């Protein structure tokens, strides 16, 4: 399992330097680390976070948007008609509630369709697992720089402490 401190170190090492989002318990140690160190913008909605990240990118930053997969549903149009259309890269760190069909009822449908939703939007993604977290983060950074488009990392339970 990776700690929030280690995860942030890997993100910074890959060049990410602007952090916003809406929280999920699966990413709470990362968000706690960001809050301690300052500079995390606690957005009110995931689509607004995508907008904020677009502005940050145009001002020279490499943004990360943290959200639960419920929020992926909220920001579909922002991704389609802002990020993808204008070519605004950002790393979407999306926690995967409803993973493998085991969760509270409100997470099951979105949990089932989250990877398909990303594929449908043609957003490249990898599913994080405990060992090669750093490899996935570096892959994400390289991919978004090559494509100038958003890239997603899905974070299932049991990966981040």
């Amino acid at each position, binding site marked *: 399992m990776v700690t929030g401190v280690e995860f942030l170190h890997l993100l910074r090492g890959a060049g990410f330097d602007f952090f916003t989002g809406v929280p999920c318990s699966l990413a709470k140690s990362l968000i706690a680390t960001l809050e301690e160190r300052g500079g995390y913008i606690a957005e*009110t909605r995931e689509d*607004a976070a995508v907008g*904020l990240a677009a*502005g940050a990118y*145009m001002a020279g930053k490499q943004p990360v948007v943290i959200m639960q997969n419920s929020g992926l549903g909220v920001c579909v149009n922002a991704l389609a008609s*802002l990020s993808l259309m*204008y070519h605004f890269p950002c790393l979407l760190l999306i926690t995967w509630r409803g993973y493998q069909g085991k969760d509270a009822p409100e997470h099951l449908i979105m949990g089932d369709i989250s990877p398909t939703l990303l594929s449908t939007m043609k957003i490249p993604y990898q599913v994080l697992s405990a060992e090669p977290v750093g490899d996935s983060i570096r892959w994400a950074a390289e991919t978004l720089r090559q494509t100038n488009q958003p890239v997603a990392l899905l974070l299932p339970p049991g990966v981040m402490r």
Partner: protein
Amino acid sequence: MKLVEALEIVIPWLGDALVVHANGFISRESFNVKDRLGNFYMIGSMGLASSIALGVALNRPDRRVVVFDGDGNVLMNLGSLALIGATQPKNLVHIVFDNEAYGSTGNQRTITGAVALEEIARASGYQRVQRVNTAATLQSIIQEFLAQSGPAFLLIKIEPDYEERKIGRITHEPPQIAARFMAAIGS
């Protein structure tokens, strides 16, 4: 006051400000009055102009950032007023052209005839908030309003435009709009 009249009063005072435009007639009228390199035209993602502008303003505190927003857009993302109030960007001026209507879909009514958006901005912590009803008042305050320390919120009441007239669409491709704006930011 019509939207185009309000824009013709405000635009000459923008200087080198970076201006993020809401979608619909606000982008299109402003583009037709004066296309500036420092204009970002948000042609989709309704509601997010102020979020985009905040992302610019927080990361470039040395630059004046202005939002040309609409009442329908603001209503769609009221949380953005709260976040601007919470983060207090001194370089952000939020201008809302309020015609109490969704202009580009046929002037269906919004609810700003009953709700004062500037009072929501005030409660959210904007440093200066003002409502303007006439062109004469707008003329008299705009230079100073744009220059002050923010976040500032200016609500300009305008008339819905019921005339059937052709307003040109933005002719730049979206990635080109972004590239021009980034060049104007200097990032």
